[in-house]
């Protein structure tokens, strides 16, 4: 709040006095805080800001002598304008102010968010040369880190990069150092990370190659944030010994450097990395034949000058191929992606953020056009006043200035309001943004945005005021005065108002089409049949003991452990079914695929591999997965019994067309298995994942060891049962663990959070646009009717019925709205192809969407014009004829 007030004061103070005024303000604030306390000092600051706002015109007006007359007369004009605006037609003024302020707030807030998250360059010098390498488990899926083995193979064999660095986020750790320190989010980084990012430390040093030597790796580089928060910004922190605490382990470390403000890596969703330790790879992490692999390393390289992204990509592919040739296939399939670091950080969010920005741009245009037409209508109604002024000697320039000053006054007041509103808007947006966006911490009201917004407001104010002024200067004002009414001139103005209306409706139409597509996509996604019932299910990972037990023993223990755990969970009140699965949880984003052999077709590899899950018999009931034919597994499908398999519908139709797969034998992991059932297709990774061929096998026939993921179906709210389930399992574990339960319906909400947020925001924008558009239509038609009063009276006197009059007004409205809607819908159709990737389950070409929007607008056109139309039809012809 303080920074905001000081910023406002600074902004409103002429630059020649800014230094001392702000200096005095800061000093005074200190003095007051000592004397009367922080809260009272803050109150003083707020009232000081209010006084400065009031005082500002005088302060600016008192600039050096040569500029004084101009400034004084402008400020006098604006003051007069404010007085006029507040005295006459208060409704119109308030409306114009509210519309401008609201649309500007929406614009400023949205731009601040989109700029920080998606548009702004990364905080590293030369960041356009930074390339990220990631791993994508499935097409279109999330990009994860790469394995350390891959990283080292690339680092040794590529030449495209002047440096290739890596970092592995390691989570929250504790730093202790006397009274200082605290919980800090760590990452381990290769020593060259900061060279690759081209980041110089603010204090001390970053890592040396020596720091990667085991035993000498106990050094820490802090980010600026962590330095301020945990060490009070003490410059003496360099060289300080701290204790690094991880669980029960305590290790002495030394702080060697502090990064500049705003710099960290990797930039990712969730908590930012606040401190770094050197990454010292174990021999296994470097071993290309190692089977244990973690996809956790964020790899970033800086392109050597003259090299391209494509070149680097080709080189990486080459290295992967040669590693595979030497060491055999360690990984199932290729999923390595090479892309600019900025794309990696912003990811898929960019396209929808840009869409939101475009939408808000549309909304701002609607608002501006609306305000312009309101002001134009005002100007027409004041024709006589202006003509009188002209008769008394005002030049056309002065008249134009009067009108422009009104536009300016509205612009100033509304931008001040928008400033305050966006201050809160940005805070609100930060809280409401979906998780999974990187750099949200950087979102703030940005000086450039404010300046741009104020300039936009001033320009739109001048245009809105200036357009009528320009029109006026072309009409013969004396004619106006003589004619004693606005009939002729009014109709001419009505034509330009009509043009404004068409433009406004067109923008609203574009916005509504986009909103409809986005909302329809969201509805399609949330109502989509995933193949399983996502409500009232929880998933938790259980593991009997540590993994250092010999593999054979683990396998032997598995069956007994599963039975034990399943029995315990089944006994928990509120649990209706419980199953086990050996792969990742529903909507968790992972998958396990295997190749298999189908007789008559051969071995299915690569993209044809089956998504495979080892499950317990009750898994299908717990997931709510429907059996289409045959049977599910039973307790008879035990180890040693003939191996059974269940496939999904997609696999059945694809590989067994026209025949019954049940009873067929397939080869899975070099052993025959008989297909005993067909279940429905499942979208295990959410509505937007593609359907895959799926294979289920009895878990006890293919045991890995005593661990797995429990799928628990509950009778009531899952949250209530989750804790009881965890407690019930605990006694069955010997040194092992049970994870926090995942409530699947919550996971679904997280998965669709982007779209939910998007749909909500677009609905808000769409609704605002509709309201503003309706106001515009109402205002224009009311104006047309008011200006046409005498003509209407004349027509009624000549025999027109009331319904004739009613319809003629409605027709006039519908006609304009129709043209606007047609233009807008056509434009939207042209633009729709730009965001096909954001649309789901509805075609961007869908006629229904465009027809709905057009019908909607027609209804709004009729509705908003109805009151003025009714008023026209109830005119008393005689009174109307006498009207001026």
């Amino acid at each position: 709040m303080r920074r905001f007030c000081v910023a406002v004061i600074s902004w409103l103070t002429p630059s020649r006095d800014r230094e001392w005024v702000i200096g005095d303000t800061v000093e005074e604030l200190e003095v007051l805080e000592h004397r009367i306390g922080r809260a009272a000092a803050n109150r003083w600051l707020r009232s000081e800001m209010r006084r400065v706002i009031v005082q500002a015109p005088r302060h600016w007006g008192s600039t050096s002598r040569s500029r004084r007359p101009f400034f004084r007369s402008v400020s006098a004009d604006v003051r007069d304008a404010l007085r006029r605006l507040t005295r006459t037609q208060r409704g119109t003024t308030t409306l114009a102010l509210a519309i401008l302020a609201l649309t500007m707030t929406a614009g400023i807030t949205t731009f601040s968010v989109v700029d920080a998250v998606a548009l702004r360059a990364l905080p590293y010098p030369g960041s356009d040369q930074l390339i990220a390498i990631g791993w994508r488990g499935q097409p279109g899926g999330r990009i994860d880190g790469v394995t350390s083995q891959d990283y080292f193979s690339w680092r040794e064999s590529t030449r495209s990069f002047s440096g290739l660095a890596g970092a592995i986020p390691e989570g929250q750790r504790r730093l202790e150092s006397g009274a200082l320190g605290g919980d800090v989010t760590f990452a381990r980084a290769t020593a060259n990370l900061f060279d690759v990012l081209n980041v110089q430390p603010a204090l001390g040093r970053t890592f040396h190659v020596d720091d990667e030597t085991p035993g000498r790796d106990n050094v820490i580089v802090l980010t600026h944030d962590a330095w301020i928060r945990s060490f009070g910004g003490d410059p003496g922190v360099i060289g300080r010994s701290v204790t690094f605490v991880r669980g029960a382990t305590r290790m002495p470390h030394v702080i060697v450097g502090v990064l500049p403000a705003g710099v960290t890596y990797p930039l990712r969703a969730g908590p930012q990395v606040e401190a770094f330790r050197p990454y010292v790879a174990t021999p296994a992490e470097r071993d290309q034949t190692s089977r244990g692999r973690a996809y956790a390393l964020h790899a970033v390289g800086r392109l050597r000058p003259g090299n391209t992204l494509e070149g680097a990509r080709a080189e990486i592919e080459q290295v992967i191929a040669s590693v595979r040739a030497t060491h055999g296939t360690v990984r199932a399939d290729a999923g390595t992606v090479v892309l600019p670091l900025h794309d990696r950080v912003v990811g898929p969010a960019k396209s929808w953020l840009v869409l939101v920005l475009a939408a808000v741009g549309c909304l701002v245009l609607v608002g501006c056009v609306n305000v312009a037409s309101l002001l134009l209508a005002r100007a027409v109604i004041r024709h006589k006043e202006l003509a009188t002024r002209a008769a008394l000697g005002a030049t056309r320039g002065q008249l134009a200035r009067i009108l422009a000053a009104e536009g300016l006054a509205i612009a100033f007041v509304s931008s001040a309001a928008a400033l305050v509103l966006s201050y809160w808007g940005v805070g609100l947006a930060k809280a409401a943004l979906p998780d999974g966006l990187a750099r949200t911490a950087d979102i703030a009201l940005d000086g450039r945005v404010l300046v741009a917004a104020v300039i936009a407001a001033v320009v739109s104010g001048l245009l809105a005021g200036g357009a009528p002024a320009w029109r006026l200067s072309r009409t013969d004002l004396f004619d106006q005065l003589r004619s004693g009414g606005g009939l002729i001139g009014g109709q001419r103005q009505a034509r330009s108002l009509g043009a404004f209306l068409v433009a406004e409706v067109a923008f609203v139409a574009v916005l509504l089409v986009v909103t409809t597509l986005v909302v329809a996509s969201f509805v399609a996604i949330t109502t989509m049949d995933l193949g399983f019932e996502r409500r009232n299910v929880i998933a938790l990972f259980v593991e009997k003991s540590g993994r250092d037990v010999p593999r054979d023993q683990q396998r032997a223990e598995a069956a007994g452990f599963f039975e034990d755990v399943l029995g315990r969970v089944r006994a928990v009140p509120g649990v209706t079914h419980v199953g086990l699965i050996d792969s990742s949880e529903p909507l968790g984003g992972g998958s396990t695929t295997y190749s298999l052999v189908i007789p008559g077709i051969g071995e299915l590899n690569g993209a044809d591999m089956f998504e495979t899950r080892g499950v317990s018999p009750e898994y299908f009931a717990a997931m709510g997965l429907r059996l289409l034919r045959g049977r599910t597994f039973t307790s008879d499908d035990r180890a040693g019994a003939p191996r059974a398999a269940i496939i999904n519908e997609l696999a059945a139709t694809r590989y067994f067309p026209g025949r019954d797969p049940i009873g067929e034998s397939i080869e899975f992991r070099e052993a025959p298995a008989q297909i005993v059932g067909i279940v429905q297709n499942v979208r295990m990774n959410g509505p937007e994942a593609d359907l895959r061929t799926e294979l289920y096998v009895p878990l006890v026939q293919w045991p890995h060891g005593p661990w797995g993921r429990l799928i628990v179906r509950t009778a009531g709210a899952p949250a209530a049962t989750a804790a009881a389930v965890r407690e019930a399992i605990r006694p069955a574990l010997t040194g092992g663990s049970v994870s926090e339960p995942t409530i699947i319906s919550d996971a679904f909400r997280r998965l669709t959070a982007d779209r939910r947020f998007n749909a909500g925001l677009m609905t808000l924008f769409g609704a605002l646009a509709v309201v503003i558009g309706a106001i515009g239509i109402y205002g224009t038609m009311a104006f047309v009717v008011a200006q046409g009063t005498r003509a209407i009276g004349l027509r009624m006197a000549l025999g027109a019925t009331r319904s004739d009059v009613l319809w003629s007004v409605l027709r006039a409205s519908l006609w304009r709205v129709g043209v606007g809607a047609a233009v807008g819908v056509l434009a939207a159709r042209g633009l729709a192809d730009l965001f096909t990737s954001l649309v789901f389950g509805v075609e961007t070409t869908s006629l229904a969407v465009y027809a709905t929007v057009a019908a909607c607008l027609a209804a709004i056109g009729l509705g908003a014009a109805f009151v003025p139309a009714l008023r026209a039809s109830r005119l008393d012809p005689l009174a109307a004829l006498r009207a001026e």
Partner: protein
Amino acid sequence: MPDFPGEFEQLVLLALLRLGEDAYGATVRREIEARTGRQLSISAVYVTLERLEQKGLVRSWIGEPTPQRGGRRRKHFALLSAGARTLKMSHDAYLGMTAGLERRLRTL
């Protein structure tokens, strides 16, 4: 004969007289607020001080940056002899006009 200063200008001139060496925006504002109870903004003080400077009644100079102001400099002001004369003139006028009315003014 110079113009009489405005009422607020008089307050500012008096504050300068009181503060002597230590006169700048914040202290002038504090002085006036403490003695008259009038709420005013720092920038209003500067507007008036600059006007007085243009009239040749006060002079200003820019001081050194200080840390408690975030490294910003101060602009100091001091009364010139013309300012002192004007102040005396308006005070004399005030005293002249109020002479003999003290008791009635108190009971108003």
